[in-house]
């Protein structure tokens, strides 16, 4: 699995196309939001968590499209299938790499997000990073599973968001709600349930992906 992750990281390091394009896309969407919602900073603070997770969800679609297309372009799925490894590990490596790339792009566009929308950072950074990590991994885990399903589809670019958005709706709701509570500096006990939902979603989709990946990639 280490080799698989290393391969993806090397690929990205050479091209730098995924993280850079995700970052630029995230920045562009942030800019559109700043123009579209021209309201006072106080009001914006109420919208900001939702907007942030919309940007993250949109950005993740871009990454997911690319994450599986390297092998698709060269029809290199054969290498995976013929390799003497557990195919579930291929899924887990894609999940980890997708998570790393999304988090990297996010770290880059989150600063402009706060700057452009005039949001002050008067909340626990630790909690905020925690929810970003959890939310990203949950989105990417279901996203990797869907990208695997849409791997050979004629309309892959359309199918991924069409399937991802409704399936990931619990993640978006839970992550947005948690971020609202973090922004309002509410005690953890009040929003623990949302973290539980995110964890359950992450574990279920990662487990399903691990179990079914064998069936998905089979020729």
């Amino acid at each position, binding site marked *: 699995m280490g080799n698989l992750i290393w391969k993806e990281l090397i690929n990205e390091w050479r091209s730098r196309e995924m993280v850079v394009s995700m970052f630029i896309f995230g920045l562009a969407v942030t800019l559109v939001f700043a123009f579209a919602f021209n309201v006072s900073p106080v009001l914006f603070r109420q919208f900001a968590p939702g907007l942030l997770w919309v940007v993250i969800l949109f950005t993740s679609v871009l990454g997911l499209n690319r994450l599986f297309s390297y092998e698709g372009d060269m029809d290199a799925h054969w290498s995976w299938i013929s390799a003497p490894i557990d195919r579930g590990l291929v899924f887990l490596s894609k999940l980890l790499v997708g998570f790393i790339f999304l988090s990297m792009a996010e770290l880059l566009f989150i600063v402009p997000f706060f700057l452009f929308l005039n949001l002050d950072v008067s909340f626990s950074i630790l909690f905020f990073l925690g929810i970003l990590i959890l939310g990203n991994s949950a989105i990417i885990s279901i996203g990797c599973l869907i990208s695997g399903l849409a791997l050979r589809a*004629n309309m892959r670019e359309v199918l991924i968001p069409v*399937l991802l958005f409704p399936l990931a*709706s619990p993640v978006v709701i839970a992550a947005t*709600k948690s971020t609202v509570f973090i922004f309002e500096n509410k005690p953890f006990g009040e929003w623990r349930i949302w973290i539980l939902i995110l964890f359950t979603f992450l574990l279920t989709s990662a487990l399903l992906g691990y179990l079914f990946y064998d*069936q998905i990639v089979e020729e």
Partner: protein
Amino acid sequence: MSFLALRVNKIHFLLAAFLSGINIFLILTIAPQNQLQPDFGNIFYIHVPVAWTAFIGYLLVMIFSILFLWKQGQTWDHFALASAEAGTMFMFLVLITGPIWAKPAWGHFWVWEPRLTTSLVLFLIFLGYFMLREFGGNPEQVSRYAAVLGIIAFLDVPLIFLSVKLWLPELQSHPQVGQYFENTGIMPVLMINYSFLSLLVVISFMIRFRVHNLKKRETHNII
């Protein structure tokens, strides 16, 4: 050849039309009304059984999908697709009857009521399911992809429902349904409606299953 030219289709169609007629007659005449929701509230007798049947349709998709992945028989795949189609048709009816009931009861067509919202999300997922079936690649692989998606979609339901329910805690989940079940007199009519609608879903399931089988036979003949 037209759809009704076949004898079996004609029988199915007449049976469905006859049962629907009885169903509407019972709701308009015998079914007890709720004091707080006269007349318009009787859509309850359609909405609730339709919703249950739709969810049963989707549950069957999951069961047949598991069986398909396990036993690898094409018939299980056709069963799953037919259930998905019947379930989606009923889910569409849920999304039509729900807002019709919500407008006079709550004043708005759509209030993000948890069960209705879950139905909408599930409906959207299954529209994606049909897109995947249509554009997913070669037919054998698509059957496997669809089976996996059918399983994921149903397992996602509890989480969608829980998160939507907690998302707007001030919104009660269907207060009308609770009020109706306080009246034990509703049960006979409701049970008859349940049986009729279940029969309708079985009929739609059988028709779609036959269509898929015929399509498969046609493809084999061409090859």
